[in-house]
């Protein structure tokens, strides 16, 4: 094994946590979406790490599925962001709060 498995998983975990922080802390919608992408990427990393440990291609197959899903999600998410910008004229997440109470 080139690199011990726990090292790889720790890297994935670090990137995941950074992504989590970004999701919760940023107010710009686009950056929130980007942070979600970071988290997805990190979880894909974990899958690949597990796959290489066993020498199976299943890890990369899972990674492909995650990638597919991320792509579809980004597409729909950006379409929604377009509508929000068109209506609210801002990228501020706190502006989209008319369902208060």
């Amino acid at each position, binding site marked *: 094994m080139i690199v011990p498995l726990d090292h790889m998983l720790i890297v994935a975990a*670090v990137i995941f946590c950074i992504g989590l922080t*970004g999701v919760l802390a940023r107010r710009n919608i*686009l950056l929130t979406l980007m942070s979600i992408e970071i988290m997805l*990427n990190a979880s894909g990393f974990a899958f690949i790490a597990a796959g290489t440990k066993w020498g199976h291609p299943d890890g990369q197959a899972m*990674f492909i599925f995650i990638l597919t899903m991320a792509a*579809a999600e980004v597409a729909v998410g950006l*379409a929604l962001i377009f509508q929000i910008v068109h209506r609210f004229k801002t*990228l*501020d997440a706190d502006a989209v709060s008319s369902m208060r109470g």
Partner: protein
Amino acid sequence: MAAVFYISSALAILATLMVITRSQIVHALLYMVLSLFSIAVAFFSIGAAFAAALEIIVYAGAIMVLFVFAIMTINPQGEKTGIGIATRLRAWGLPVVMSLIIFGEVLYVFVHATFGEAQPKFVTAKEVGITLFGQYAVAVELASILLLSGLVGAYHIGRRKKS
């Protein structure tokens, strides 16, 4: 090979940190691309060449380009550009704490888990393809349906109605 992995993963972590702390969106975007590239190199170094290639082509090459298009279309400028960060450090307190909690738990699991030894093996694209279209054939079909629905949905949601 191990050194490559460590260097590229360190670079990835650094770049990701940059992504979430930039005030300009375009900067964050570029750092994101850099992060993705670094992760792809890391994939190469542990023997997952196919995944690395996919990462570059799809993730960095398509999804991030989509983001770039979005930003160009929305064209945020003026006060929209610097939205978000960190003039208020207070906003970062809770997320950092929560992330540290998650990370701590992950570490806890890893410390108490035993990972067996395995042999280094270079997984080729051929093997991945066989697995995909043999074992996971249904999942591939489902993924394609997902993409279709994403396509239709994105088109419908993003449509400007002539009102």
